């Protein structure tokens, strides 16, 4: 099995719901807590397994905002595992999930240096490296209903931008989506063969605005109200 995620950049709305669901589930999960420092202060910081950035792609008027969630890619050739001196980082043979043994980690940071995707974060409280577990404590939990045996981020995504499955099965959702929507891997030149794939935004029809009437008395009045009311 090669478990991983497919993230649909066409429909992600950048709500950060996946990151919050991840934090909520994993802070009480196998590698929890995901320690926060100064949580209610001026400089709140903490461990997150999932972070969302937003980019502007292209120049106006041919530009587009793309929200970009990133978590561990569970690389096939994971450099973080190769560089780990203690053997705390390992990749499971049966499903390809990359994990950190919290009892073995010495907190040297080298794996986070080796990861191009910023997927690993040091927990200052435990002094150990923490990372996405692909919700290993959910996906194999037989007490949960079958449809809930998915990572928290996938379950919670309101836009259905996240899909979880087995890339070794050519008929799985994730394999089909990657095939049909030209799913791609990030920074392929590193050669780490990330398992997670990203679906590019679809080509969309541009909405023609040239026929919208402008410059009438109504528009001038609206513009004047906007100027007065705004500040």
């Amino acid at each position, binding site marked *: 099995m090669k478990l991983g995620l497919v993230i649909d950049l066409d429909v992600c709305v950048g709500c950060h719901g996946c990151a919050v669901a991840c934090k909520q589930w994993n802070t009480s999960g196998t590698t929890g807590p995901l320690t926060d420092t100064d949580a209610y202060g001026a400089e709140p*910081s903490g461990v997150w397994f999932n*972070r969302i950035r*937003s980019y*502007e792609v292209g120049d106006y008027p041919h530009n587009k905002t793309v929200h970009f969630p990133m978590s561990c890619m569970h690389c096939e050739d994971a450099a973080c595992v190769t*560089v*780990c001196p*203690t053997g705390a980082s390992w990749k499971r043979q049966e499903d390809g999930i990359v994990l950190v043994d919290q009892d073995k980690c010495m907190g040297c940071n080298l794996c986070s*240096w080796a990861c191009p995707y910023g997927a690993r974060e040091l927990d200052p409280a435990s002094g150990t490296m923490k990372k996405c577990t692909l919700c290993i404590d959910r996906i194999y939990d037989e007490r949960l209903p079958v449809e809930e045996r998915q990572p928290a981020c996938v379950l919670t995504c309101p836009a259905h931008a996240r899909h979880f499955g087995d890339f070794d099965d050519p008929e799985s959702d994730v394999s089909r989506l990657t095939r049909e929507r030209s799913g791609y891997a990030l920074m392929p030149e590193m050669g780490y063969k990330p398992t997670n794939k990203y679906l590019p935004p679809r080509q969309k029809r541009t909405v023609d605005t040239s026929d919208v009437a402008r410059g009438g008395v109504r528009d001038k009045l609206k513009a004047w109200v906007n100027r007065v009311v705004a500040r």
Partner: protein
Amino acid sequence: MHPALSVIFFTVTSGAGYGLFILLALAHVFGIGDPLTVGEFYTAGILSLVMITAGLLSSTFHLANPKNAWRAVMRFRTSWLSREGVFAIAFYPFAVLYMLGFYINGLELGVPCILFALIGALIALITVFTTGMIYGSLKTIPQWSTSLTPANYILLGLASGATFFTAIRALAGSEVGTIAALAVALVAIAAIGKVIYYFWIGRESITINTATGFTRAVVRLLDTGHTCDTFLNREFGHTIDCAKVGLLRGVVYLLAFALPIILLAMIATQNGGSGLALLAAISIYLGTGVERWLFFAEAKHVVNLYHGRQSC
């Protein structure tokens, strides 16, 4: 990259310590320069061991969970950090046996003593190489991912070790022409290596386009997704402006290379006393410290591409 003082002190100090041991062993075994005196042997030998040990201890301050540090030797087959740990430990018995042989036999070199000295020197060299490879093996940091990285670690270790050895011998009042000339050569080679490195890291090869997959358009960051610093910012977000880089590179050229070469050349040509040798050693040690700080500060981790940097 965040320049962590514990790691800078470790690589500079233990690098110079290993260099000093290598120079001592080679000078002793092959009879480079005037014959060693007992005092010089112990000063150089013990100083090298103290520097190596202080450096290694300092490196553990970089660990967030040092109680598991003993596990660092467990992945010798894949991890350069593990290999460094193994070689650093393997060095000690040979170094101690070499010194013990000296204590028992005096300046007379027996075959076992020669073997211990040479094997110790070889392991010392390998250890410095593995230290460089920890950084050199990281593809995520283009400025480190080059064979120049371990080469610079070895060359600077040998250069500072040779300068220290010259200083010890000069302070003991020995004739140090040959060893000072050797030190000049080693510092000069290290300088050439560093100049090549500084030119090499001038180009940036990985872009925000392949990082995000949008290779046919301009990509600009709109929002990092966090309001305050994160682990990623603190560890990888360190930036340094061009003027400061230029200034500090000047300091490196001056303290680590130019000044030691001039002072050592004066000693080699019998134009200076032992004070100059000590000054050369202090100068190269400080210069290497600045060099190592810059090595970290100038390194740009590719995760910065996701935080808006256009190329790394």
